[in-house]
């Protein structure tokens, strides 16, 4: 598989690199809100087994030194943080909970700076 957006060891996640690599926390929260249950589940199932390996890979550098591919992987893992809440915690309540979450606006996040 040719890698375009992600570091080579994580090429298997390439199909998710378009939608699940939003730049800001607010956009990532929006991706969670706008994805359907099948999309959330597919993303969760793909990233979950690789989460610790991917974080360990990125932990070799400070975030400010990430190259483009590493930044892309970081953003994908940050999206996973939102989706893990949807799948593991909210479960069947995710859609109903989302209608309430739409009223919350993320205005600042450390990862965005």
């Amino acid at each position, binding site marked *: 598989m040719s890698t375009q957006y992600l570091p080579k060891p994580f090429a298997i996640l390439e199909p998710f690199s378009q939608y699940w690599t939003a730049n800001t*926390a607010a956009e990532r929260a929006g991706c969670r809100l706008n994805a359907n249950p099948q999309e959330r589940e597919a993303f969760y199932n793909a990233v979950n087994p690789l989460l610790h390996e991917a*974080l360990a890979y990125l932990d070799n550098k400070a975030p400010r030194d990430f190259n483009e591919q590493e930044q892309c992987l*970081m953003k994908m893992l940050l999206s996973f943080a939102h989706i893990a809440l949807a799948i593991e915690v909210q479960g069947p309540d995710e859609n109903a909970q989302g209608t309430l979450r739409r009223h919350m606006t993320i205005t600042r996040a450390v990862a965005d700076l």
Partner: protein
Amino acid sequence: MSSQTNKKATMPPEEELALGTDPIPAKPYYCPDFFALEREAIFKRTWLQVGHMSELPEAGSFIVREVDIANASILITRGKDDQVRAFHNVCTHRGTQLVSQKDGTAATFTCPYHAWTFTDKGDLRAAPDFERFYTDKSQCSLPKVSIAVCAQLIFINLDPTPTQSLQEYLGPLAAELETLTVAHATHFSEYVYEIDANWKLSYDNFQENYHLRFIHPRSGEAASGPDNPFGYPVKYGFEDPHRTQTIWHNPGFQPKPTQGFAMGKAVEFALASGVVNIENAKQYYALFPNFFALGSPTQPFTHCIMPIAPNKSRGVIRIYWAGEDQSATQRFSREYNTATAMDIHAEDRSVIEAGQRGLDSGALKHIHFQSQEVLCRHLYTQVERYVTAYQQEQSA
């Protein structure tokens, strides 16, 4: 929590007896006249939290904050002399709002209308054709607002001569706040919301746990359990006009996989930073009138609920961090814990607004607080105390 402890916790605390047990009048939670009294009696003369020193990182930094209930826009500057000052954001020529940005860096501020220019100390430096005015520049400084800092939190007081300093106002809680992450924070994440509810109704929701099992059945598992099904606090504290609770933690809580990882890492990072005082990790501070701070190392948040109208408020929630993200894991943990806190805060919205709609109908003369809603009762008694004192002053 043993059944004996649980029984004891449901007994009215001594402090609660001093607050009485009668129903509370419903009208103050929706009445425009009472809201107008709160504006004068409370929000125009108590210390209000409006910012954090990390927002003024260098000389020349400034922020602008709106205090909706007082129709006030406040300009806060950090001068070349490193002094932090606050002013009403109004040009002294004809009242035009001086600064339209929310934050930035500037040595001077120029009014867009006739180009009057003020220094970061609030002095009028220059005004075109000023010799035609019938005053001198020393009479044209920006109106000052009292400002003070505790635990790096910036407070203002719209009373030109506050009756108490911030330290006096916070009492012993000032020292406790200095032990929290917020006092050492360099960064924060923030989310905001507007809600169709009176500020007290909204605030009360976040200072009682009676609703946890009904409104947060999934996200609130760590805060209630078989030994304490309602997740009532371990302890209440009262430092008039403020109050605290010590949060109970469910020892049988089994975090979900990513939850356990992200929270565990947050604790690890917080301990490694050396700025966390675990003693106050379970303390939840409710500072009068409208501010919360939580001691938790994983979600060290503050929550300010600003009144906008008798049935409308704005919430600003910030999660404070000491230092920038050092690693991907730390960045992931912070994003996860911020999203978790936002999930929980979002879940309260519909019941708070439903409560306001019910109260707005005027159908109820009174509302009822049980012994474990004592913090809500305490807030109301403090509001009533301030309003009564103001009315007495006005009639004297």
